[in-house]
């Protein structure tokens, strides 16, 4: 927490306080629809920060983060439905499974020279094959989906993550805020500096005594664990899981888009990116409906062109530019 405040100039502290106050009081101020959009943005900010620790800090490009999300979701949901084990205990299993998958990818990916591309392709391959695997796993519903029962008598059982929209909104807010504090603390720490050194030049980092392989594993584990925890959230929030959705490439793209648009490697970039992209997506859906463009593929077609346009136009992300304009620049510690 102190690291977070130390990283901001006075104006930034005030701005952060205002944003936090607005988000905390949002359930009183806005309707359900707007709240659901805010929830999506917060959750996107959380996942984006998890990915940003790996890519933005440590320079490892994962293009298959849906893997950890899906594994976390299925692990906690399976324990709950099949064995009656609640999500808090389930979260440990989710994290363990996510970290185990990360360990396998890391072991295969970190040993070779052109590790950059190899690692990225491996992450895609693992996510895709997990999708196919879960499609063919009848025990957990296969391609037809896996569902968490929603029972009236469990309403308000918050200890089992059985709450309403406002409950999940605050949960997402807490997770996004927690991720911000963790990212800031990490970045100011010795471990965080080892991440940065590896991102900048792995060979030089090694010569200065940084155990590059071990530190890369740590970054991957932190990121995978956070993302798997996000999977627990998504399982108990949506109550249904489909391999074709949760493990899909488009899910991985959604996760990494917010930090890329917001600014890779910055603390606030993933958050700014999520709060820009989620409403933009909603607006796009609305606008296409207005124009009567409901044909399957129309929205995705526009989305594809938007992706190409945005990435061509914003090389280093919006946040560094925005922060300079508003005088909210993160101080380089």
């Amino acid at each position: 927490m102190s690291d977070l405040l130390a990283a901001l100039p006075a104006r930034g502290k005030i701005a952060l306080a205002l944003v936090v106050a607005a988000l905390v009081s949002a359930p009183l101020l806005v309707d359900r629809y707007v709240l659901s959009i805010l929830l999506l943005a917060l959750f996107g900010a959380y996942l984006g920060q998890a990915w940003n620790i790996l890519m933005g800090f440590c320079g490892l490009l994962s293009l298959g983060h849906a893997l950890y999300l899906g594994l976390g979701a299925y692990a906690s949901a399976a324990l709950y439905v099949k064995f009656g084990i609640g999500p808090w205990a389930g979260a440990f299993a989710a994290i363990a499974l996510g970290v185990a998958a990360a360990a396998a990818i890391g072991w295969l990916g970190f040993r070779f020279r052109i590790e950059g591309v190899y690692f990225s392709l491996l992450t895609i391959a693992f996510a895709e094959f997990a999708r196919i695997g879960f499609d063919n796993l009848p025990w957990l519903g296969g391609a037809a989906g896996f569902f968490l029962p929603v029972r009236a008598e469990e309403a308000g059982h918050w200890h089992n993550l059985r709450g309403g929209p406002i409950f999940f909104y605050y949960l997402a807010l807490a997770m996004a805020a927690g991720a911000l504090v963790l990212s800031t603390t990490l970045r100011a720490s010795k471990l965080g500096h080892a991440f940065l050194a590896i991102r900048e030049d792995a060979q030089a980092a090694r010569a200065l005594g940084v155990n590059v392989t071990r530190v890369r594993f740590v970054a991957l584990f932190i990121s995978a664990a956070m993302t798997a925890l996000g999977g627990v959230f998504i399982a108990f929030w949506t109550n249904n899981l489909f391999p074709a959705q949760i493990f899909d490439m488009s899910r991985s793209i959604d996760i990494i888009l917010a930090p890329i648009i917001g600014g890779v490697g910055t603390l606030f970039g993933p958050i700014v990116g999520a709060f820009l992209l989620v409403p933009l997506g909603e607006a796009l859906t609305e606008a296409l409906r207005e124009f009567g463009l409901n044909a399957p593929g129309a929205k995705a077609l526009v989305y594809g062109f938007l992706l190409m346009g945005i990435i061509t136009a914003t090389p280093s992300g919006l946040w560094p530019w925005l922060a300079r304009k508003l005088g909210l620049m993160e101080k380089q510690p």
Partner: protein
Amino acid sequence: MSFSLYVEVLIQGVLTGLVYGLMALGLSVIFGVVRVVNFAHGEFAVLAMYAAFILFGLFHLDPIVASLPIAAAFFVVGYMLQRTVVQPFVTRPQHEQFILLVGLSIVIVNALLLTFGPESKHTDLSYSFDSYSLGAVLVDKARVYGAAAALVVTTALFAFFRYTLTGAAIRAAADNLTGAAVVGLDVKRLYAISFGVGLACVGAAGSIMMALTDMTPMLGPSLTLLAFTIVIVGGLGSMAGALFGGMLIGVAEALASVIASPSIKSMVSFSLLVLVLALRPQGLFGKAEA
């Protein structure tokens, strides 16, 4: 199961694998020279399949024959694409290249979906159900023709890199970019040609595949994944590795669909991928680290 059936599956696997290999070769050429991973590779294969389907519908042109004009057209598309859209991204970080090409893949899939609908398409060729028999072993004619066409295109490609000045220049640029620029090679043009050659490979392969399988717009991602798997198994940037990896994956998948079930065949290529990376991280034909 009889011995002859195994031989049959093995041959079918090798023949299909040659077509896969040609597709993966395109990915390998683009990465090897431009250092950009074409994340829209499978979608380009599907685009080629539609092109072959249309040519078949209009002129009754055999998809295997159509692979040549389609490869030529895809060369032009690739050349232009590199010049206009991709070139600015050559020096940008990999994750930005990824978003660009994924955006492109989304555009291709959904443009096809809007134009042709989600139904699966196939071509009825006179020889679709014919086969050659070697004793008890039966081999589909379509696969034989397809593999032959793939071999022709691949041989032409090897000859291009081996015997033409432009091919030699591209190899030089792939080896040592600064050196190539210093001796006055127009690197941007070489990049555009390489991207064109890469798309010509995938164009030819996609067209040939139209003679072998049914096709839907949604086939793209699985073909992209297939190409990734092949190049990682074969060794990124190695042309021979792409071909051999294609045949290996072709055989493995063919065997898996006979022994187990067709739905499990991707899992088999995945296991193969993990196995190769565990035992020989640089891929079967990849260069060991210097």
